[in-house]
């Protein structure tokens, strides 16, 4: 995923600002990364490099931490954050297949964002609607009893919404 120069600048500045309030003791490393994630919604390479320099560790170690924990994202979240429930009930009812459908349809892998920034994909633990398994959250909206065809349906309805928005905007001009 290529970030714009503006995104890189914001990421670098935000990270530097956060780092200025922490000393270089190793115990601060993860808290700083969590702050970066909170502020930016993700932790891009430029931010990892800043953090690595501050704590005087190889950049690959920061990358190691980011990829170890599920809570971190490497890419900016999409406009529609698709979260696939991987709880026990959903797992038993084919969450894996649902994951694959999204990956195939959007042409990205878990944790990634589409080039147009419309969608990002992630896995979450039980979202508490097990009777509707398998469950997918799109932003905060719950969708239950998901099948591959419903994945197609959801994407199609998003496209329709988008088109309507465009037409509406055109009319308003």
């Amino acid at each position, binding site marked *: 995923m290529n970030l714009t120069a503006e995104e890189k600048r914001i990421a670098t500045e935000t990270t530097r600002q956060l780092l200025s309030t922490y000393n270089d003791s190793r115990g601060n490393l993860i808290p700083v990364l969590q702050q970066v994630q909170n502020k930016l919604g993700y932790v891009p390479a430029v931010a990892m490099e800043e953090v690595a320099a501050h704590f005087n560790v*190889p950049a690959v170690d920061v990358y190691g931490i980011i990829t170890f924990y599920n809570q971190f994202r490497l890419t900016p979240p999409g406009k529609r954050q698709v979260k696939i429930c991987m709880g026990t009930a959903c797992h038993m009812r084919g969450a894996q297949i649902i994951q694959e459908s999204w990956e195939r349809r959007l042409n990205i892998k878990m944790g990634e964002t589409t080039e147009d920034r419309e969608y990002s994909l992630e896995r979450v633990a039980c979202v508490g609607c097990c009777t509707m398994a398998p469950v997918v959250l799109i932003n905060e909206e719950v969708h239950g009893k998901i099948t591959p065809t419903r994945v197609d349906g959801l994407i199609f309805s998003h496209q329709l919404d988008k088109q309507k928005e465009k037409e509406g905007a055109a009319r308003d001009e």
Partner: protein
Amino acid sequence: MAETVTITIDDRQIQAAPGEMLLWAALDNDIYIPHLCASREEAHPTASCRLCFVEVEGRPAPVPACTLPVTEGLVVKTRSPQVDSLVAMGFELLMSNHRLDCKNCSANGNCELQRIAKARKLRLKPKNLPVLDKNLPVDDSAANIVYDPNKCVLCGQCVRACRKSGNGTLGFARRGYLRVVTTFGGVPLGESNCTNCGACVKVCPVGALAQK
């Protein structure tokens, strides 16, 4: 304090420096204990490969030899039914996601996995577990190093060597089954800050890192 202590390994009496890890004391006296992840320089062994188990007199369960400092009068056995079954299990798990291709492997004949298999009469090919091939791309982008992550046993030797002699290029990423040794951002070695020093190739106990 005495200069050396006397310990007993497999009924043989051996002199060793007090505090030295048993694994090194044994190896220095030509007693082989399987091992992949240990390193002499490391004060705090990661003890991640779980292959160096020994039986210690007075202890209920086997202990990794790379984490056991020797003390006067220590008595250990490198083999016992418990040790053997732990090592066999660990080895089988290791080999269940190792791309086995000795004929075409740079480490053939000088491979720690082959050594362990021979010493403990174990099969390289798992008998009870299916073999999972991660099918990760082989990285031959660097000037003189080829890296096949499918053969990596995650011992961490290269990561340490890279920090000492190289640029701190290599490190661990991800976790569980997906754990890999890789570069910052997971880019090929040729696009990383790798200096091509080759220190990683020298320490890799298997054929994962090889000279071109």
